[in-house]
């Protein structure tokens, strides 16, 4: 399989200038002369050295709790925000070097599309479904001919099972499931190679969720896309993804084939995530429970496990050394002192 997207030690750091000394060298110099305050500006490590790849035609699941850096990572991959360090290579080209402000002019703009969270909020209320789907075709494919545009929009609508009569409707005239379809149609209209799905079903009722998930699987097979599927609904990730990466506080803590992650999780955080899924079958079972909140992502200690303190198996060494990456099987690894190769 060929690698479509390759991400290498990708980092996104936000400098919190409001709290620390100003960036102005003069202010800094005066401050140093007058006070004994350390010259240190706090830095928020939103994404901190993330490496993974997505193969062509593969769907990769990205899970983790809110605040772990999922959305920041997605923003960088979709080239909506710039990285601090690292490399994003797409189909062999380093697209991380292109500033996000001018990325819309790059050919890769059509190849990477994103379906945003919550279809109710992410559609323009003044655009009909037709306008929404036509917009990327006009802007990215440069199609101006009215008849051709109509033909293309209708073809995409058919692909996502959106009845033609709904094309003239505004978002408030559509149901949740229909809005989700419009959102997906907008993203696949330009035939991307990589589709990023940010919690595509979390705002939908279970009765429609299944149809949308099946639609996504069909589209992927028909159009030969790769998916990056961001979700906190692990049951859905399990259904849709070939491989899963688990993030915690800006770093990947476990990565491997979906089935293996769910049946034999190696990292204690993954174990806790999985045992937190409410489920009729697991009722009454003994579960791994987490206490407390995650540590602050501001200036994390480089020589400690970021999960230490919440981890049910944490030991003294976890606070003294960063955990190593241990291969559990060939394509399954966990970043934990206690992970064991199987």
């Amino acid at each position, binding site marked *: 399989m060929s690698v479509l997207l390759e991400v290498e030690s990708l980092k996104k750091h936000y400098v919190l200038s409001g709290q620390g000394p100003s960036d102005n060298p003069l202010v800094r110099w005066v401050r140093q002369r007058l006070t004994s305050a350390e010259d240190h500006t706090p830095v928020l490590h939103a994404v901190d050295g993330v490496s993974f790849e997505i193969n062509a035609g593969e769907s990769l699941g990205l899970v983790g*709790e*809110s605040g772990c850096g999922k959305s920041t990572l997605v923003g960088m991959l979709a080239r909506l925000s710039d990285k601090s360090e690292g490399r994003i290579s797409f189909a062999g080209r380093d697209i991380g070097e292109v500033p996000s402000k001018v990325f819309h002019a790059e050919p890769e703009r059509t190849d990477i599309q994103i379906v945003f969270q919550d279809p109710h909020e992410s559609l323009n209320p003044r655009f009909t479904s037709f306008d929404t789907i036509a917009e990327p075709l006009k802007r990215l494919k440069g199609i101006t001919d009215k008849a051709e545009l109509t033909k293309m929009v209708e073809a995409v609508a058919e692909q996502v099972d959106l009845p033609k009569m709904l094309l003239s409707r505004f978002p408030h005239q559509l*149901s949740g*499931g229909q809005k989700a379809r419009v959102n997906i149609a907008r993203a696949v209209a330009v035939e991307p190679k990589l589709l990023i799905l940010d919690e595509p079903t979390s705002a939908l*009722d*279970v*009765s*429609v*969720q*299944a*149809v949308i*998930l*099946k639609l996504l*699987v069909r589209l992927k097979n028909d159009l030969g896309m790769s998916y990056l599927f961001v979700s*906190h*609904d*692990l*049951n*859905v990730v*399990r*259904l*849709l993804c070939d491989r899963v990466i688990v993030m915690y506080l800006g770093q990947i803590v476990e990565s491997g084939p979906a089935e293996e992650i*769910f049946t034999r999780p190696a990292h204690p955080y993954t174990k*806790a*995530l999985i*045992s*937190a*899924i*409410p*489920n*009729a*079958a*697991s*009722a009454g079972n003994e*579960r791994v*429970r*987490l*206490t*407390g*909140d995650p540590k602050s992502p501001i200036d994390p200690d480089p020589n400690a496990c970021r999960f230490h303190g919440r981890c049910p198996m944490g030991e003294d060494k976890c606070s003294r050394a960063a955990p190593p990456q241990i291969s559990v099987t060939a394509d399954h690894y966990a970043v934990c002192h206690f992970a064991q190769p199987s």
Partner: protein
Amino acid sequence: MNERVPVLAVDNLNVEFRTRSGVVKALENVSFHVNRGEMIGIVGESGSGKSVSALTAMGILDEAGRVTQGSINLGGLDVLNAPERDLQEMRGREVSMIFQSPRTALNPIRTVGKQIGDVLRRHGSANRQNVRAEAIKALMSVRIPDPERRHDAYPFELSGGMCQRIMIAMALSCRPELLIADEPTTGLDVTTQAAIMDLIKELAKERNMATVLITHDLGMAADYCDRIVVMHAGHVIEQAATAELFASPRHPYTAKLMKATPHGEGSLDDIESIAGGLPDLRAELPPCRFSARCERYEAACDMPALIADEVSPGHLVTCRRPL
């Protein structure tokens, strides 16, 4: 453990909303009860009437809403006919409610400790001297670390899970007999969700409190509730003990809902969606509001006077052609 004393009994309730585009028949013949120490789950799609049932039981239905039939008995009080003053006494002391999105339910410009103190002073025993100590005790009861310091925090300084703990502390500070939790974990992470639900369950058990959990997540209801009430388009279509409901769902909608929920095993082919949407509740409706989406529909389903059948002890199904 479950003494058979209903804390809340809703009987044959009909609720309508008058809107510009017609009368919405939001609830029809809704009956359910909760016993002391029991946790029931009300499950259904959005718009099925879960929250309206709970709000009516609390006597805080929107002014556009009107109860046209039925009765609600809450700890011996006739909610629908009681004077507002009695209802105010009842809320907080006998029944409390926690809402979804805790951050918006809390007052953003008062410290959380003060907000808990308000409830304690209005309904509880606290006075000006001991209100701080009592509020800290309430914070401790929901396992908030460092309660002394958190007492003076504003909601924006706390995480979503922490805010929901504050809401729970507030709701339970006067030791109510009944807690209504309306989607208490929507918007929270799975790990936080599990912690919050464990906390509710634990506190309910400790205090022998009745709990109504309103959720759209069948898995969560299965995990935590003793009994489940399934609603569809303003009707209670099935209710049974959790194990029984999952072992043998009798209403076609319940069965479909279970099939539509991903549950960690099997593949995507095993889950099925439910065709169609909820009917327009403003229109003239057939006796069974699921008939248009139902595969087992036949002419007899349109006969009036559809009533709940007790197919086995405690298992009620409102369907002419149960599975």
